[in-house]
């Protein structure tokens, strides 16, 4: 009886996990299969390998300047990620390491910004970017992401695992505060940086709403905007849309799989 219960329990567990795994992976499979089919076959719901892959690629390449939109996306994602990591790690380190009467108040105020929905920020941000003359530039996409409260929070929490004795040892060894940060903290916390890199890079790469508002000319647009605009055309070519979706997904997948180990390590704690 007991054995039967255990077997049944395993069967249900694996069945549930199987269904969930299928639901997660199906859109990817469908995207890849769709890229090989014609738009009509996709609309009909054909799930199978077709022969229209090269036609779809050609259609996609004819519709958009692929290298340019890729370059735009990569430039924005890398700059956003690098600058966010610099700002947030400096802030997280500072909040954790330096004592001040106002430290917790300022920190709480920053965390409170997490509660403000982006929809409420769009108009003030747009006006701000307009006044700075940055509308329709990539800086308008990059700048608002830099002071990310979530990434600051993440770095502060991770810094709690950074041994204070390392900082003391470095001070005795004659390092200035900026040298301690650069030469000790950064290399020691590299797993934390890797995890933050993946989170911020993916968020930045997939960012849609804000770029849609501030990037107006075609030569400034990112791949997510292009995918979306192709899908919402009057007669969308779903084959080309699937090709563009694959290209849009590829970099984040590569980044994730390349840095997967550091990501997991960063999530469970950098210091061993």
């Amino acid at each position, binding site marked *: 009886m007991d054995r039967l219960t255990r077997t049944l329990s395993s069967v249900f567990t694996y069945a549930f996990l199987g269904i969930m795994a299928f639901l997660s992976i199906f859109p990817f499979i469908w995207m890849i299969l769709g890229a090989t089919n014609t738009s009509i076959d996709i609309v009909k719901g054909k799930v199978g390998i077709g022969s229209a892959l090269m036609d779809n690629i050609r259609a996609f390449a004819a519709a958009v300047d692929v290298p340019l939109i890729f370059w735009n996306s990569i430039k924005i994602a890398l700059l956003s990620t690098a600058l966010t990591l610099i700002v947030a790690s400096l802030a997280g380190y500072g909040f954790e390491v330096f004592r001040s009467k106002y430290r917790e108040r300022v920190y709480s105020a920053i965390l409170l910004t997490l509660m403000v929905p982006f929809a409420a920020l769009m108009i003030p941000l747009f006006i701000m970017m307009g006044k700075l003359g940055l509308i329709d530039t990539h800086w308008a996409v990059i700048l608002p992401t830099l002071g990310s409260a979530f990434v600051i929070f993440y770095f502060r929490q991770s810094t709690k695992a950074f041994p204070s004795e390392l900082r*003391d*040892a470095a*001070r*005795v060894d*004659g*390092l200035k505060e900026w040298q301690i940060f650069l030469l*000790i903290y950064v290399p*020691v916390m590299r797993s934390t940086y890797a995890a933050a890199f993946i989170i911020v890079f993916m968020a930045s790469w997939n960012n849609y709403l804000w770029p849609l508002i501030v990037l107006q000319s075609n030569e400034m647009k990112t791949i997510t905007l292009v995918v979306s605009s192709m899908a919402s055309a009057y007669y969308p070519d779903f084959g080309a849309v699937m090709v563009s979706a694959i290209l849009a997904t590829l970099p984040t997948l590569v980044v994730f799989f390349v840095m997967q180990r550091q990501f997991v390590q960063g999530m469970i704690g950098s210091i*061993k």
Partner: protein
Amino acid sequence: MATSELSLKSVRKTFGALEVIKGVDLEIEKGEFTVFVGPSGCGKSTLLRMIAGLEDISSGELEISGQRMNETDPSKRGIAMVFQSYALYPHLTVRQNMGFALRFAGVPKAEIEKQVMDAARILELEKLLDRRPKALSGGQRQRVAIGRAIVRHPKVFLFDEPLSNLDAELRVHMRVEIAKLHKKLGATVVYVTHDQVEAMTLADKIVVLRDGRIEQVGSPLQLYSDPDNRFVAGFIGSPKMNFLPATAVTNNGQPSIRLDASGIVLPAGHLATGLADGTRLVAGLRPEIFKDGGDSSLLLDIEMVEHLGSETLVHARSGETLVTVKYSGIRPMKDGETVRAEFDAANVLFFGADDQRIR
């Protein structure tokens, strides 16, 4: 005449309204091995960090080799510090860890290499120089931490509970290593520990701290045999000194002291302090003063006996007071027995109601 290498004059430390170091005066001679001991929260590590420059000095003077160092940067004080958690840089090799401070002091590469090799030879670390800290055992990491201190040729070595993270066996081994190293280098050392065995075995001078104040400074044996107060008497020595309530009386016209629980009377003629009859006191009896053939004795009800082979520890009661007796060798004693434990009255110390020693 010995020169004072490190001097603290009325040194205080406050965190807001809280005063954690309450006026410390201390002179440490060149080449001396000084150990700060005290219970948790007594301020010993804070005091060490103030010497290192890792904590500001709120008031008072710190001098190293006769120079005021209150505001001097830690790296320019002529100190090197060994931390409890070793504090080795995990991303650097042993060689890079040991040479790190010299690199930042602008020492030429060849000279750094020579210094690192010299220190590695002393500490037998030559084969480990290209390893990262995570590939080392606890004892090896601690040796690297000591090596990192040695290469700086400091005037004063500061050790902050360096053996606390090691297992018991390795701790004993490293203790001997540190003692040997001190002899070899002849360096001035300030060492913080809460382990009084470490303090007794390593120190030339022990500084007992409590609640941010120095309770007593002296050699290990001085503190053991001639403590100034009940705190020091209780802190130094293992197992702890037994404290029994007592009262000053006159016995056969002689000044005497009666142990309240047992009623036995001990002579007090040797005490310089005159005690009025009825004065409340505390008698301090170290567990190891008990021996066969003593001139006085206590009747004890045994609660538990620990047979350790080389010694026998007896936990017993004299009236309401718990008493520990340490006999050398094996004793055929059992739980629940009543025994007469003998000792020499001259070995008993007395403390007043204010816990200060009555001599």
